[in-house]
């Protein structure tokens, strides 16, 4: 079964949710014209990335009553959407979040579980840490959502895979860094490398939507990708330019790849659990 996936490799306005919503709806129209079943927006696509003290002023709840989510939920009756936003829970903790919207409903909300707070990053200062990694069913099959630093760690994609995800959906607002004599930035090279590795190791579709544009001196490099379960690159968006990136995926590829390479079948989860328990006990428990 073939499906068209679209990645909205957009620039955003920092802290202007209304303006960003309008751009989302514009890309929905374009993705519908392209025949897409799913349109993935980058991390914090409704707010911009380096929010700092703006974070607490731009949160929204993914409900039909919310003025920003109402039109997005309406649009999700025509195609599935993944959007990035700041979620404020009942107890007023703020999360970097991604929501999967389909058929007018919220199928899943993921709170970023790894907040980079080092180097140029300061997310842990402004946001609460998410506490779960769960796959969820969609009209395209079982999927999993991870946000940027979440997939710089191997465990969230691994857990999503074990939980049933055949489509790993990654979103980023990845600041470009590491200019060398190579034609792409080190950050771009690294992210593409691991996306290809996840597709290969987990024999799964790996979809990555990264934003473009600038926030003060930070540049965001785009280069959104889709890899198939063989680890082959299906599409890569341009670097540093806004684009609607389209890929056709053949869900039957999962069948063919896993018939050849039954890594999932043979994965020894009991062994992992036993060894993990042993390691954690030895180290006095984990985080």
């Amino acid at each position: 079964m073939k499906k068209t996936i679209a990645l909205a490799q957009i620039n955003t306005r920092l802290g202007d949710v209304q303006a960003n919503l309008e751009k989302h709806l514009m890309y929905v129209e374009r993705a519908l014209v392209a025949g897409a079943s799913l349109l993935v927006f980058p991390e914090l696509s409704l707010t911009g990335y380096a929010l700092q003290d703006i974070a607490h002023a731009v949160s929204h709840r993914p409900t039909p009553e919310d003025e920003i989510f109402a039109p997005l939920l309406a649009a999700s009756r025509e195609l599935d959407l993944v959007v990035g936003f700041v979620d404020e829970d009942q107890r007023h903790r703020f999360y970097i979040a991604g929501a999967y919207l389909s058929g007018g409903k919220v199928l899943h909300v993921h709170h970023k579980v790894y907040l980079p707070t080092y180097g140029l990053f300061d997310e842990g200062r402004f946001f609460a840490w998410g506490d779960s990694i769960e796959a969820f069913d969609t009209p395209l099959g079982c999927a999993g959502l991870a946000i940027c630093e979440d997939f710089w760690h191997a465990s969230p994609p691994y857990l999503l895979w074990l939980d049933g995800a055949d489509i790993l959906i990654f979103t980023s607002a990845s600041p470009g860094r590491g200019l060398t004599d190579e034609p792409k930035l080190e950050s771009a090279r690294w992210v593409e490398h691991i996306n290809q590795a996840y597709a290969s190791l987990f024999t799964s579709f790996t979809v990555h939507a990264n934003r473009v544009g600038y926030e003060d001196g930070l540049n965001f490099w785009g280069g959104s990708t889709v890899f198939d379960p063989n680890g082959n690159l299906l599409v890569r968006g341009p670097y540093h330019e806004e684009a609607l990136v389209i890929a056709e995926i053949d869900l039957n590829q999962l069948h063919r790849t896993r018939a050849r390479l039954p890594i999932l079948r043979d994965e020894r989860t009991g062994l992992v659990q036993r060894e993990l328990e042993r390691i954690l006990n030895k180290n006095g428990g984990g985080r």
Partner: protein
Amino acid sequence: MSAKLKINTDLAKTILTGFIHSEITRAGFSRAVIGLSGGIDSALSCVLAAEALAPENVLAVRMPYKTSSIDSLEDAQRVISKTGVQSLTVPVTEMVDPLFERFPEANAMRRGNIMARARMIVLYDQSEAFGGLVVGTGNKTEILLGYSTLYGDSACAINPIGDLYKTQVRQLSTALGVPDEVISKAPSADLWAGQTDEDELGFTYEDVDKLLYLIVDERYSPAECVDAGFPQEFVQKVITRIRRNQFKRILPPIAKLSNRTIGYDFLYLRDWGT
């Protein structure tokens, strides 16, 4: 040039022209003002700004003092002719001479700083007159070494080349067609005849860039730099310079009194809302 310092110039150009365009337009402007000294740094900033905004939206200002080298003026003109940017020549002699006469004992440091700050006044006046933001021309080497005048040549609205070492500035300038005369001459603040940066600093850019790369980008300890072949004295001198000039790289600290203080816990990017 060290292999690690080599950059992909196409990628650098894409990112830096995009940066100039983005940061100037979202601040509500479409034009730029640049002080063009005849040296390589301002030539590169000028070429990048002309590429990002179109030449007619860039004003290059030449601001000679009466003792400035005529070569500097001519080299700046080469950049103006090559890029097709708008230009203006505003000598600072009449601005600074009265102060020099008031303080005849002022040494070269004071005189250099006064000239640099007079040029800043001219640029920021032209910023208002031309309706453009001042684009900076300081490179990573000089920012780290503090080889600039605070509120003088370091004053700007945005700085596209501040993360490029001097040797990388040369590489990008060559790729972007900065005139050869500008690239090949010895870097100089041109405050007195025969002055060169490298004489004044006591080392070459080629050498110090390799060392700065290890210290800053690769996080080498001083001992590791010495192990890598740099003389101990050189390493110590550079590290001391970096530390002592930190004040030039940050906004003046505000004494904290309230619960929310600008700079500490009132945190917004400049691009807030845009």
